[in-house]
């Protein structure tokens, strides 16, 4: 059993950047900087030998020099079958490559903090399916981390954001547009309870797509002039990609950017205005808008019902995204949230709430927090009308940003923290987190015509934990075994969904068709599905845990782990 104050590293394993945080002994979450001293680490791996690689900033620099040995955006391929990359004669799965990033984070954290890091909470996009979640967990195992739980990125962001808003009742829209994934989640904070109401997204949309638009635009211009396409060669492509990426970033603050292209001795400078960029990517923005609207519709809410819009992910820095949400919500997005850091901060907090219930900081602060929550409620009851969005932070004169910055902890705004008048407010309350499923879970059954059909048992958007009991029957006479196949995905036919696990109840006495069989699905907060199959007449039952599989067997994982240990990660 782990010590109560043993560290739980909160890791935001992102498509383009990763970040990590921990909760310090005063109960404040703080970002753990990497060995280079940055808050975020690029999720880029460069292999320079069969057992050596570089992760992070240095690897990014190698992209132009050695493009074929550099991996980027590996998160987009997590959970994909048969996806392996070859470096120095060894095939690496996405899990193994992610594990190298995780190991770099782990080792940097150990160096900075001065003690061993064993446990971690890793975040994934809300729309990740079970294979993708499983793969993320496997990456943690390979990296030698004990992944306590996998939590959704928007949930983590909401925890970090909502910590100093606990006590009121707020509805929050988390708009998470990262480097490669996109999620929109509506959450409710009620008292100390955080609930996911609805969620949707696209695991294949992110800042990368904006970069690509810019890149295609520039490459086309270049081609028109010289009949040469810089995308045709790896190194010039990577160089141009970097330039487009930088141009995209500068277009967030400037109206105009220039992108120099240099390929096969030909030179050209392509100017891009912000308006042009908006035009090039309008459909991507539309897609974001559609998803946000769908999520709200699913939550049965209107934009005006929302108290806050929380922007998460680096791509939300783009003015077009800010404008979109401001236009939709009719008010500016919540300020003071660092879109790169809040996910890992929230993950660290969630790790403590869930897995260190007796954390000293938690215990010390809990009582105060609960009483403060009661106070706020009382105040609300007294003056219900104006206090729509109670600001529990006492000094209302202080700009919001500073208050949130404080809540995030000492590393960045230590001065502000010291100046805070009521330090107990920044401790850890006992927070309950309720997530919701994003993919329906079902069961394969035979219908009247004895054709296979998939029946949904736990629909998407169900709050977890959830339990479902269903009664089925023998499809044939004299069966002696029943097999329950657990499926994930939308569809009524087997080939439309994915079978994620099987439970067999054997040794049954032969009986006629129609003999009842009961199936119970229990879906826990840690996203683990328990399946119980019960023969109603004899009471015989079988229980099994369906764990999300990322596609590697335990042997493969352990051999990958051995290799990972041998590997030098700089």
């Amino acid at each position, binding site marked *: 059993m782990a010590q109560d104050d043993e560290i739980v590293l909160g890791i935001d394993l992102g498509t383009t950047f990763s970040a990590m945080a921990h909760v310090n002994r005063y109960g404040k979450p703080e970002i753990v900087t990497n060995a280079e001293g940055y808050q975020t680490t690029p999720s880029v791996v460069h292999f320079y030998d069969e057992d050596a690689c570089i992760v992070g900033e240095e690897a990014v620099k190698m992209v132009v020099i050695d*493009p*074929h*040995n*550099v*991996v*980027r*955006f590996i998160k987009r391929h997590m959970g*994909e*079958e*048969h*996806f*392996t*990359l*070859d470096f120095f004669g060894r095939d690496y799965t996405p899990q193994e490559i992610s594990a190298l990033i995780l190991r770099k984070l782990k080792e940097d954290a150990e160096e900075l903090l001065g003690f061993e890091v064993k446990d971690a909470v890793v975040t994934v996009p809300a*729309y990740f*399916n079970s294979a*993708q979640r499983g793969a993320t967990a496997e990456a943690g195992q390979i990296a030698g981390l004990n992944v306590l739980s996998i939590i959704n990125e928007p949930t983590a962001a909401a925890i970090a954001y909502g910590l100093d808003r606990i006590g009121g009742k707020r509805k929050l829209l988390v708009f998470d547009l990262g480097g490669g994934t996109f999620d929109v989640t509506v959450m409710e904070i009620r008292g100390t309870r955080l609930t996911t109401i609805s969620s949707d*997204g*696209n*695991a*294949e*949309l992110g800042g*990368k*797509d904006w970069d*690509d*638009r810019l*890149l*295609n635009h520039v*490459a086309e211009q270049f081609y028109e002039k010289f009949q040469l*396409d810089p*995308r*045709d060669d*790896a190194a010039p*492509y*990577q160089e141009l*990609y970097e330039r487009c990426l930088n141009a995209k970033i500068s277009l967030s603050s400037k109206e105009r950017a220039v992108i120099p292209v240099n390929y096969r001795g030909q030179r050209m400078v392509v100017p891009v205005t912000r308006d042009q960029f908006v035009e090039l990517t309008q*459909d*991507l923005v*539309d*897609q974001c808008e*559609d998803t946000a*609207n*769908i999520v709200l*519709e699913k939550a*049965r809410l*209107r934009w005006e019902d929302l108290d806050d819009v929380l922007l998460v992910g680096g791509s939300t820095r783009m003015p077009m995204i800010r404008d979109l949400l401001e236009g939709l919500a009719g008010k500016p997005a919540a300020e003071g949230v660092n879109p790169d850091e809040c996910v890992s901060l929230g993950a660290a907090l969630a790790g403590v709430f869930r897995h260190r219930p007796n954390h000293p900081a938690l215990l010390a602060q809990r009582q105060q927090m609960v009483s403060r929550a009661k106070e706020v409620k009382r105040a609300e009851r007294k003056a219900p009308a104006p206090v729509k969005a109670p600001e529990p932070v006492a000094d209302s004169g202080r700009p919001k940003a500073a208050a949130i910055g404080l809540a995030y902890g000492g590393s960045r705004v230590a001065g502000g923290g010291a100046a805070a008048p009521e330090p107990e407010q920044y401790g850890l309350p006992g927070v309950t987190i309720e997530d919701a499923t994003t*993919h*329906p879970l079902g069961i394969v059954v035979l219908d009247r015509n004895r054709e296979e059909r998939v029946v949904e048992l736990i629909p*998407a958007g169900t709050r977890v934990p959830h339990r479902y009991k269903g009664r089925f029957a023998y499809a044939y006479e004299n069966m002696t075994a029943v097999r329950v196949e657990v499926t*994930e*995905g*939308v*569809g*009524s036919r087997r080939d*439309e*969904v*994915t079978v994620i696990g099987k439970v067999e109840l054997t040794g049954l006495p032969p009986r006629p068709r129609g003999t009842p069989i009961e199936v119970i699905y229990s879906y826990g907060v840690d996203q683990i599905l328990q399946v119980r199959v019960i023969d109603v007449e004899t009471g015989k039952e079988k229980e099994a845990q369906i764990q999300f599989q990322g596609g590697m067997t335990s042997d493969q994982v352990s051999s990958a782990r051995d290799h990972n240990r041998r590997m030098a990660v700089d």
Partner: protein
Amino acid sequence: MSKKNLELAHKFAGLVGAGNLFEYLGLEESATSDEVRAKLREKRKYMQGMQSNPKYKTQALFLIKNFGALDTVLTQPLAYLDDVRRRQESEHLPVLEMTIKGVLKGGRLNQEQVSFLSHQATELGISEQTFQEALDRLSTELGVAAPLPELSDAEKDSNHYAVLGVRQEAPRDIIYDAYREAYRDAKATPEPAAARTMMEAADQAWRVLGDPRTREAYDISTGATAPPAAARHTGPAPKHAPTAPPVRQRQGGPQAAGVGPRLEIFGEPVRDFGVGKGPVADQIRLRTAIPMSGFVTSTAPQWLKVEPAHLIATNQEQVLKVTLLPEFEEAEATAAIHIVTERGDRAQIVYEAHRRRFSPLTVGIAVLTLVTVAVALAVGSMTTIKSGGPPGLTIQIDPSADDVLLNGVSMGDGSAVFVPNPPSGRAKLRVSQRNFRTYERDIEIPPDQPLEVPVVLELTEPMDFRPSGDMIQGTLEQDVVQRVMKPRSKSMDDCIGAVAEPGKTLSGTVRIHIRQSGRAQGVEMDGDGISNPRVRTCLTRQAAAVYVHPLEEGDYATVRYDYKVTL
């Protein structure tokens, strides 16, 4: 070697636009298995650096994911190449055969035609050997000899068969056709003197060969063996006396049987399909002068499908259905439908498919545009594109039908059904589609005139829309993705709502999002009206059919439905 792996290898070659993997890797087909596998490994390594490159992404990811399969295929390069060849041949052989048959119909075969056919074969990727086999087989079947050896000019002038370019065993009607052709060729000759000589020679040949008695005498005189009598008399009785000169033909005018061009295509060039209305499909209506069999092929079968693949030999008028398949992955591409009739008439219809407004990531709606129609007749050249329709019955269905019955006989399905030869007079039309009210009507079909019947289907009942809370919830069984991809009807738990005052009718738009994300697929609807508890019915949605094909995981398509809410 598993079929699946070969299929993948073939698909990959198609994706990168190479004939086979050797071509893709820049290797000779004689390369050894080790060489080619090493090269593939190298290529994969190269593509690892390209996997985030938008231009090479599809290719790179395909190679990375299916490397194992491709590598396995290349362990047996000979078997693979054999499979490629067989695949190419089996795809293109029918086209070649039809072309050969078309040429052989003329009853003669000269060197020029052989080299034309051989060129066609090479273009279609058919080996010389297979081509020769096909040619021999078909010429034996049709009773046409292999090309006559090149004769000297003197011999040519003296040999009547050579003058007309027919074999000795040719039946009389073929000789007559050849004679007319020779006559026409002569007329087309620019030098009057040469033309006259040619005409005289042709006339002379016909005078001798046209009459069975003089022909027999001529055969004996030249020492040729007498051909079987049967072959000689298979043709119809002589219409013209052999000595009479033939009826003069207009140049380039109708020929062969019947009147009018031998192949006509109806339709307007430059048409768009699939813009939110109807399937991403087109119908080609064509008419042949006489019932003819033939072959229809697509140059890009992987994404542009044409059905049926044959012309129906008993019909003069037929409809071909061209469908854009979900496998269409490019942003823009061109493909052609080739029609080759048994007489060698050829038509080419060029389509351009592109995505409208949406990018490869967002799109669902792809647009098919008919660009050009070119018809080339085997003999003479004639282009016929007729605007409007041929006589016949066209039923336009909004949104689309599972089944269209005319007098109880099924005529097809889809958003447009064309009946080439409808019974004239009163007929009972019945159009059915799930979730829509069956449409029944008597129609009056005029003889020999085009008739277009528009049919607008109405949804059955309020589709179980119930007010609940401040939203209207309902279950809608909607066949959203039909035909274009595998049919996937989903029940939807969703809301449609509108702010409406009692007694007023409100029109609006309901958007349907088709989502395919991860492995999950589904359909969602959202309305831009706001809910109202008092809305009781939600009816008469004049829904345009939604035909979308989610292409990649995470694709979205927004399709607009118009609806009307009446309180």
